[in-house]
């Protein structure tokens, strides 16, 4: 069983296999299941992600009314104009937003690695898909690659906003997506690790400060930026750019930053954006009363 990213890359490269294959083999061993069973279970997760994006692109609204409809706006803009940041990037952004808007409306999603960060991996996948034309099998493998990288973060740091801030959720999700994009685009396992390192480095310190304690503001838009971070970092890694700080050390830094983050900034709705005048106003509107928090 691999314990860190270095071991994961070493395992893949010494056996001449992909990161997704390492993950599939480990899962078969741990769960004592066949290749077909493990693959089939992941394919069902892929179906859920695809459906969530479809629903989000049709337009949804959360119960609080704070989020919903932005995925539709972005897609409409893309049809009318050429986005400045490029079609693929905005497509990924709109699909990440779509997923998290569905999540906020209490729709069905697949946590990747969490519900609040569920947009980054599928958002990038269903955008990159239109460029790389992968097979369904390669799309399922994208999820195994993401999962392998997230597995390391979950076991060595945290994927919980309450424990480690948003860097642990959207930061991890974006890093996972970056590594998976690299594999789908034909990069090496080492390049996947570089892409993940570059991504997480740029999301270190991100706090978890949801308005009214709801997974809506700023979570939906943080997934948008997480997805774009992932695409850009994957391109950089594929270009041969490497991170001066190795991926495992970046993950360790994230863990330590999370430990020193004050509780007000770890999913308690007491600090950051949640504590702004507008954040408090929205909170009062959602609950019909002002919730006293310090």
């Amino acid at each position: 069983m691999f314990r860190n990213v270095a071991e994961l890359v070493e395992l893949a490269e010494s056996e001449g296999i992909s990161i997704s294959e390492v993950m599939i083999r480990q899962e078969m061993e741990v769960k004592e299941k066949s290749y077909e069973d493990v693959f089939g279970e992941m394919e069902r997760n892929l179906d859920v992600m695809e459906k969530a994006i479809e629903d989000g692109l049709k337009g949804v609204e959360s119960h609080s009314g704070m989020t919903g409809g932005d995925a539709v706006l972005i897609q409409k803009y893309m049809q009318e104009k050429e986005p400045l940041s490029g079609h693929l990037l905005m497509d990924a952004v709109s699909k990440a937003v779509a997923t998290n808007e569905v999540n906020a409306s209490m729709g069905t999603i697949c946590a990747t690695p969490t519900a609040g960060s569920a947009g980054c991996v599928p958002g990038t996948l269903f955008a990159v898909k239109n460029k790389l034309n992968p097979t369904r099998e390669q799309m399922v493998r994208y999820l195994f690659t993401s999962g392998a990288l997230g597995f390391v973060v979950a076991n060595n740091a945290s994927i919980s906003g309450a424990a480690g801030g948003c860097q642990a959720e959207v930061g991890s999700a974006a890093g996972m997506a970056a590594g998976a994009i690299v594999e789908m685009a034909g990069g090496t396992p080492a390049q996947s690790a570089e892409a993940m390192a570059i991504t997480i480095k740029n999301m270190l310190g991100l706090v978890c400060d949801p308005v009214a304690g709801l997974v809506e503001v700023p979570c939906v838009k943080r997934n948008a930026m997480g997805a774009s971070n992932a695409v850009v970092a994957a391109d950089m890694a594929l270009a041969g750019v490497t991170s001066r700080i190795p991926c495992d050390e970046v993950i360790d830094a994230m863990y330590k930053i999370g430990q020193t983050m004050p509780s007000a900034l770890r999913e308690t709705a007491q600090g950051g954006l949640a504590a702004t005048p507008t954040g408090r106003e929205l909170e009062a509107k959602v609950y019909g009363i002002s919730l006293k928090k310090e």
Partner: protein
Amino acid sequence: MKFRSVFDIIGPVMIGPSSSHTAGAARIGRAARDLFGREPKYANIHLYGSFAKTYKGHGTDVAIVGGILDYDTYDQRIGKSLETAKQKGIRVRFHEEDAHTDHPNTARIKMGDDQGSIELVGISIGGGKAEITELNGFELRLSGSHPAILLIHNDRYGAIASVTSILAKRQINIGHMEVSRKEEGQEALMVIEVDQNVDDDVLDELEKAEHIVQVAKISE
């Protein structure tokens, strides 16, 4: 290693909005239901840390009760669980606690009926994964790296032997085992970490063994 499966990371499929506060909370509720073994008549749910601060927005209350009603994380009925519990005559109470806990997402559930009750503490550690850290006042020290079987039993001779012989017959290897009791001859708890996943029919057989009160498996 707390996370053993890729599906802890890519998954679960769930009803939004929060894996820690909704899916993880539902799993704590369901663990309580599994351990109790039947629908309770009442449930007192104490919430700590981020759970206490944000449970209304995240639907943590709805999710825990959904779990107690035996719903899975993706069950659409979770959304109406509080109404359903009321219709079924289950008295549910929530308590927001200020006490500091080791983990920010902690819930203590006391539930039961006129036949008996259980009390457990669960923590939601991220991505929808939950751990049970305390059961009926017994602290659980699970490594989390292997599946575990929990057995509440009467503190009598032969109880341990009957359990281990069933596992031996099924060729299930015990990696770690702890037995604790509060008072001689009273309720006791066996915690057994095993090397492979345990099928439900094994649990059924264990439950029928002498002096065994309740059986459940966790951290699959």
